[in-house]
């Protein structure tokens, strides 16, 4: 069996943790001092990808082909020139999307029969595809040129962005994306045609007559069960939503304590009834209720939830867990969770108990288990 390994993207570098003989430890740091916003392990090739945002010097992508020891800068997605005379439509907040890469917000491997295919979601809302392991990228024009895309607006950022890309393991032409704010969109033909698929989601932040419009929704994160990808979970700005039909419709799940607000969600890879969330006080304040970090878990498809706290800080803890900072491995037993205050926890029993790996890392943006 390979050594369990997880990659932690932080404001000051990429950290790799491994489980040695009985204990987890940080075994490697790369890009120390640099802002690593996201990492991906492609189980098909074994490649690792790291997205960096240098601020002054822009957004970059790096790839490692040896498990993370050596890295090489590869192409970053590049927006095409804006057509001559084109006047973009101003969205709700009045700032039209710039045709320029602001942030890499989603990285996903294509299907098992598509070696080298990667998807990349970005701010200000472009979805890119690579067919050569990230050596080059192409903007998905059907989605970008859809006039409804111009109605998207920023959620917590100046620009809208694609943060979730779910590739159906049964059929890689079926791709579902989550947009803050633009709802959920689905293609079933590999990206030639896209439709909004957020029916049932509710946006309390909109005027009453517009609250159920699919294209104004703010899903913070999407996850699906790999054994039954029609079962999807969404941690939405307004709460928790579930789909049992591949995003064709969504049902709101209410009454989950201590809160249904949060950013992260992870879905069990084999058990379609199990998912995890990390709640926070909604929605302007965004800290753990009563200063207690907890994870909520359902194991019955969302009918009931448990509040898991063993091993997590329960006194004056103000850790917020961002949308990509909760991950579950391929067994469904091991979870990793990282916070804005640099705490990193791992569970080996499906969230029943947690071990603190560090309380002193830089702010954590994302965690990513390697999958065989």
């Amino acid at each position: 069996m390979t050594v369990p390994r997880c990659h932690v993207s932080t404001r000051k570098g990429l950290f790799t943790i491994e489980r040695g003989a009985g204990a987890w430890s940080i075994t490697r740091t790369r890009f120390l001092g640099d802002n690593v916003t996201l990492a991906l392990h492609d189980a098909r090739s074994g490649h690792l990808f790291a997205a960096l945002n240098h601020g002054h010097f822009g957004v970059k992508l790096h790839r490692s082909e040896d498990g993370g020891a050596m890295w090489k800068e590869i192409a970053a997605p590049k927006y095409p020139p804006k057509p001559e005379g084109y006047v973009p439509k101003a969205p709700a907040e009045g700032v039209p999307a710039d045709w320029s890469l602001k942030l890499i917000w989603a990285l996903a491997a294509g299907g098992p029969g598509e070696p080298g295919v990667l998807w990349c979601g970005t701010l200000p809302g472009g979805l890119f595809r690579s067919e050569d392991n990230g050596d080059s990228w192409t903007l998905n024009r059907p989605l970008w040129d859809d006039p409804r895309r111009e109605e998207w607006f920023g959620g917590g950022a100046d620009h809208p962005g694609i943060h979730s890309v779910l590739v159906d393991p049964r059929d890689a032409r079926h791709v579902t994306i989550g947009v803050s704010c633009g709802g959920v969109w689905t293609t079933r033909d590999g990206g030639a045609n896209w439709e909004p698929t957020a029916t049932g989601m509710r946006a309390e932040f909109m005027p009453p007559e517009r609250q159920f419009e699919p294209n104004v929704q703010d899903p913070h994160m999407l996850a699906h069960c790999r054994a039954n990808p029609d079962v999807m979970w969404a941690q939405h700005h307004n709460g928790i939503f579930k789909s049992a039909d591949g995003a064709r419709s969504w049902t709101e799940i209410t009454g989950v304590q201590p809160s249904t607000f949060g950013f992260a969600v992870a879905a069990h890879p084999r058990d379609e009834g199990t998912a995890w969330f990390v709640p926070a006080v909604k929605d302007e304040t965004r800290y753990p209720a009563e200063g207690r970090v907890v994870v909520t878990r359902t194991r019955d498809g969302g009918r009931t939830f448990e509040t898991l706290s063993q091993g997590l800080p329960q006194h004056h803890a103000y850790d917020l867990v961002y949308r990509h900072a909760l991950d579950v491995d391929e067994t469904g037993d091991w979870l990793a969770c990282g916070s804005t205050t640099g705490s990193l926890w791992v569970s080996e029993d499906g969230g029943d108990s947690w071990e603190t790996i560090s309380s002193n890392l830089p702010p954590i943006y994302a965690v990513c288990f390697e999958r065989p």
Partner: protein
Amino acid sequence: MATVRFTRNIQRHVTCPTLEVPGATLREVFDAYFAGNERARGYVLDDGGRLRHHMAAFIDGRQIDDRERLSDPVAPGAVVDIVQALSGG
């Protein structure tokens, strides 16, 4: 020919030695410099070919006017400095 100098902070990511290159405008000077160092282009210019938001450029100590098209004239013998704007943190 103009002399192009870069902030030392960029050197950690991509080596940008001081060089003399031809060009009558900043765009021409950049094109000449980046022709021999294509990777550096993306660190200084965004994907629309504009000077990156938190970068600043000076020609003989004068901050440039045209960050979009980079049309500021560059006289023979001028010194072009590429630095970070403190607004970028």
